[in-house]
């Protein structure tokens, strides 16, 4: 594989903490992730896993006062953006990375017509094009009728609002679109439409996508590769096909059973015992160890490096149940690079 271009997004072992007056939350404890140009990648985790924090860190959206990237690097198209200040982000945002969120209403201006909001986004990021024409193009792109340009956000249905927000994001002509639970608030049929739209848009625009979700089913239908994040740590990653065929980390395995509402021989529903960990404590070992049915003594002591699974070196897991690679870092790099 030739590597003429750097990956559009490269996150290397990021540790991020939130501090308030008397609490520390270690939201990310060493999260790594790589997205190549044009690739669709899923980031799967439950609430509190740090998946949204990771996405927000890519755009400098975590509050400057209370959050801090303690270690690691974030590179967008090869450029280090880890230490950018809020002011510097103001100029950065939208290009080449844009984001859409679960709740479009809180990101659309309630008293501004949709068309105007899209136009503002165009003027800010690609002012050389004739704006009116471009607004029409974008609405068509997200399959909204041109007449909706004059509508206000509250006049739209949930699915239409998500499309409108998508149009605002696409006005920046991003090379990477981050979608944070874009369909969680929507009905299944509307969800299917939005996912189909995202697929088409990627094909048409050659744009990469990071889809953040708790729903493995969505990843299956929309992503080429996926990362599983638990308690601020990426525990498994690989091609969607491979991970679905043979999930490796006990947490991933548990997630699949739970998502399918699988039952065991006694007719019991599959479950992951215990509750998600408290991120206040600094975790030495694998954060999943206390809930893990297969935990070994070393799991509590430290988090292993990546073990590469299968032939293609694209599927990897951080779990003591799997033999450690000779050169773990190289393996992780290969696997992460896909």
């Amino acid at each position: 594989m030739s590597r003429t271009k750097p990956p559009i997004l490269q996150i290397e072992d990021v540790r991020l903490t939130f501090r308030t007056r008397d609490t520390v939350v270690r939201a990310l404890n060493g999260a790594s992730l790589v997205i190549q140009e044009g690739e669709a990648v899923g980031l799967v985790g439950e609430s509190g896993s740090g998946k949204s924090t990771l996405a927000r860190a890519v755009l400098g959206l975590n509050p400057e006062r209370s959050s801090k990237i303690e270690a690691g690097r974030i590179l967008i198209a090869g450029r280090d953006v880890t230490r950018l200040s809020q002011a510097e982000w103001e100029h950065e945002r939208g290009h080449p990375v844009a984001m859409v969120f679960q709740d479009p209403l809180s990101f659309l201006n309630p008293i501004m017509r949709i068309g105007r909001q899209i136009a503002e986004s165009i003027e800010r990021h690609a002012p050389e094009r004739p704006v009116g024409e471009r607004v029409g193009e974008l609405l068509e792109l997200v399959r909204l009728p041109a007449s909706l340009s004059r509508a206000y956000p509250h006049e739209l249905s949930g699915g239409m609002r998500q499309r409108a927000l998508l149009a605002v994001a696409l006005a920046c002509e991003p090379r990477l679109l981050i979608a944070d639970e874009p369909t969680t608030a929507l009905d299944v049929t509307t969800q299917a439409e939005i996912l189909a739209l995202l697929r088409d848009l990627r094909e048409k625009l050659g744009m990469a996508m990071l889809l953040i979700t708790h729903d493995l089913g969505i990843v299956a239908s929309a992503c080429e590769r996926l990362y599983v994040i638990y308690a601020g740590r990426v525990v498994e990653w690989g091609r969607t096909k491979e991970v679905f065929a043979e999930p490796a980390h006990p947490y991933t395995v548990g997630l699949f059973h739970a998502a399918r509402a699988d039952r065991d021989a006694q007719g019991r529903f599959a479950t992951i015992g215990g509750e998600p960990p408290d991120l206040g404590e600094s975790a030495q070992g694998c954060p999943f160890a206390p809930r893990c049915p297969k935990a070994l003594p070393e799991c509590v002591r430290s988090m292993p490096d990546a073990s590469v699974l299968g032939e293609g070196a694209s599927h990897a897991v951080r779990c003591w149940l799997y033999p450690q690679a000779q050169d773990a870092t190289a393996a992780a790099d290969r696997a992460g690079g896909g």
Partner: protein
Amino acid sequence: MAAPLLALEGITHSFRRSGGVLVTAVRDVSLEVGQGETVALVGESGSGKSTLGRIALGLLHPDAGRVLIGGKSLGDMSSRELRRERVAFQPIFQDATASLNPRRTVRDLLGQALRQRGAGAIGPASVELLESVGLRPGLSYLERYPHELSGGQRQRLAIARALAMEPRLIVADEPLSGADVSIRGQVLNLLADIKKERGLSYLMITHDISIARAFADRVAVMSQGQIVEEGQASVVLTRPEKDYTKRLLAAVPQLVQ
């Protein structure tokens, strides 16, 4: 044949939306839940499934149609009789946080229900209830407030309160959509255990096809205020006959590639 535990007959209900537009949420719907049966009411938001659930609980009075508990119509009861009968049906809501008064401790919340039923020995009974929903040791939970519990624990507490009334039917409105995937199995198992031990019935309102398929005996698919298809869950949710059900199933992202 004995009268079914819950029978909804020709229920119609409309709301006036803020703009003054009259919206018919439920249109001439009939549904029965038998003793010991689990019926899933499946549909998308706005299908009227939650409205129907609230009508079954007696929280809403339908514009037309009858709600029968064991063959007796709620509409014919005096308000005292209604209060006495309705406790046989208990709710579990999607958002356990919202369904527990934030100013009451666990002891208060359970005590209120137990006293209402006229149970004696409130303390021991509360502990027993807590332990029956897996909050052990029950004693250690009594003095806590809902916000001091985790999401999963709160949902268990809400279930415990419902059980305090010794209900014959639990109307569960999206009981799992607030919970994380990894917690869902625990709640489903708990609900299954309760059913086995107490022989009660469920009317489970959900948008999640996989849960309906795994958990329900019978399923009714609702769309735009009407039941479009009804039958055995394993049949309807695998080989649906109606177009709407087919489309609904097709829209669910599959876990197999």
